[in-house]
């Protein structure tokens, strides 16, 4: 059992990272932010699930997907469909020509619930679908691509196209999907009003805890043979293949795992924000997710969370003051990270630890620190 714990928490350094992140998410932020801001952080944290998936897929397995918004969206839509059906009970929709179906269907002259909506009346089914639908889509796409050894740029382009197809598809079938407006006016989950401040607090904590669990689970996967396999595959794919492994299936599985994480993020997004629309599924959000992971450090699980929080906080502060400039700033940030800090924040942090660690040691071991000649920048313990 000891072995299992050490695999999940992974060494002293990782426990420190875990405790710091848990303190930040569960104590510092809830204590210092009002519910409006905290709810925004909760929204960012749902993107962090996608970034976490990208760390596994891109950072660890070396496969870059520019379409993770697809899975975020699928998870979100599965959740939203359930919530929308619950919000569209016959009494509150009695002014419609067909009461009991979502309002946008009624506006589009649809008179009965489409068959693929019916199972989403059930909460257990919907919760399951949040994971299963993205995973199945990822499995099919992954199998088709990786079995044919499509990789690198080609894979990135195809996933990008997938994001475009899905967002356009949702957009154009308004009667079935809510179209460009998305699915809005979500009210309750099994009778529990998700719009109250109380519910938003609970959902924030649920998101933060699920995120921490996802990190621990990923860490557990990476600490075992799977982590070594991913590293080996990135290093020398051919050698892995000629050691008797079906490399494509490992890539498919990682893609599915990243998709399932993204789906969970999407569902939590819908619960906290109260709507989903195709603009969260398409190309731009998919690329933003990659930037979050890159800024945080594409092969660091914790880095992905900090990267997501940082970029989004920057985005909301910056775009409140200079809405036009934000996209340029974002693009510049991405280029700067790729060129200057390929390992993102995590890389900078590691470098700082390596450079400053000995300095701190030296400073500590000095018998009497008389008149420190100009403390080294950032050299505060």
């Amino acid at each position, binding site marked *: 059992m000891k072995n299992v714990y050490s695999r999940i928490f992974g060494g002293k350094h990782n426990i420190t990272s875990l405790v710091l992140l848990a303190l930040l998410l569960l104590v510092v932020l809830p204590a210092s932010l009002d519910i409006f801001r905290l709810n925004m952080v909760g929204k960012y944290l749902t993107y962090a699930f996608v970034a976490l998936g990208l760390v596994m897929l891109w950072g660890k397995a070396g496969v870059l997907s520019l379409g993770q918004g697809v899975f975020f969206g699928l998870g979100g839509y599965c959740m939203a469909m359930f919530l929308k059906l619950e919000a569209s009970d016959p009494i509150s929709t009695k002014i419609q020509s067909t009461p009991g179906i979502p309002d946008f269907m009624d506006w589009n002259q649809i008179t009965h619930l489409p068959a693929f909506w019916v199972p989403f009346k059930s909460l257990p089914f919907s919760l399951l679908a949040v994971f299963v639908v993205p995973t199945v889509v990822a499995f099919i796409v992954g199998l088709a691509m990786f079995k044919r050894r499509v990789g690198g740029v080609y894979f990135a382009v195809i996933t990008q196209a997938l994001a475009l197809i899905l967002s356009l598809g949702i957009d154009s079938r308004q009667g079935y999907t809510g179209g460009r407006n998305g699915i809005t006016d979500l009210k309750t989950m099994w009778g529990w009003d998700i719009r109250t401040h109380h519910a938003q607090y609970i959902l924030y904590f649920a998101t933060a805890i699920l995120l921490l669990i996802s990190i621990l689970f990923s860490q557990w*996967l990476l600490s*075992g*043979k*799977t982590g*070594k*396999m991913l*590293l*080996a595959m990135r*290093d*020398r794919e*051919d*050698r*892995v*293949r*000629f*050691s*008797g*492994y*079906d*490399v494509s*299936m*490992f890539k498919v*599985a990682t893609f599915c795992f990243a998709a399932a994480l993204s789906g969970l993020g999407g569902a939590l997004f819908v619960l906290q924000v109260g709507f989903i629309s195709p603009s969260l599924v398409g190309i731009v959000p998919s690329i933003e997710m990659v930037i979050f992971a890159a800024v945080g450090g594409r092969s660091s699980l914790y880095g992905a969370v900090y990267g997501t929080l940082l970029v989004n906080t920057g985005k909301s502060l910056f775009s409140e003051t200079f809405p036009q400039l934000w996209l340029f700033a974002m693009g510049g940030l991405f280029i700067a990270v790729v060129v200057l800090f390929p390992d993102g924040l995590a890389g900078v942090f590691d470098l700082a630890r390596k450079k400053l660690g000995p300095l701190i040691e030296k400073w500590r071991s000095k018998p009497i620190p008389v008149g420190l000649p100009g403390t080294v920048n950032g050299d505060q313990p």
Partner: protein
Amino acid sequence: MSSNTDFLLAIEDLTVSFDGFKAVDSLNLYIEKDELRVIIGPNGAGKTTVLDMICGKTRPTGGSIKFKNQELVGMAEHRIVHEGVGRKFQTPSIYENLTVFENLEVSYPKGRTVLGCVRFKRTPDVLERIHKIAEEIALQDYLDVEGAFLSHGQKQWLEIGMLLMQEPELVMLDEPVAGMSPPEREQTAALIKRICKGRCIIVIEHDMDFVSRIAHKVTVLHLGKILAEGSMEEIRNNPKVVDVYLGH
């Protein structure tokens, strides 16, 4: 379909052409159990291409490759490995970011499916095998060293060790002593002689001293065809071979 044989590996009429150029041309090659066969020949003779086709890296244009009377042509690479074929590449292919121990562990033939891999545990069996093989390839003191920090010769040995972890019945070594010092060559020759018990080995090599030290039988390839086949002595005295390859 060609008939069944007693050979471990029976290659018949094997042909591959790249844009009309026949790199290997109607090759027939039979290798018995427990045999150590060396393939020599000038550059571009098609030696590496033959190994590529056996292990599934290159698809032949025609012909058949039967291993234990099972057709390998068209089989996926990892399945060929499961059948018992192991391949060492010309340039040492090891995982530079993993330690020697992890390199060997990843090559252990358990947990090869995704779920199997997630469930994989370091059992005493695995540890024992890793230590045994590490000793065999003289890397027992380097288990915690990352692959990138090994010398060139040690990398070559590690890759041979990784093959041995798979317990293959057929081992294919592409220039195993390239870039090695003379003492390392000697050690490698001894290693190959040791591991050939109970399995069949195909070696591609240019170093004739090394070849004469290990070979049971030598095949000379030239322009995708077999020029000669026989013992080292016969090959050395074959005028055609002397002409195209061994020279003066």
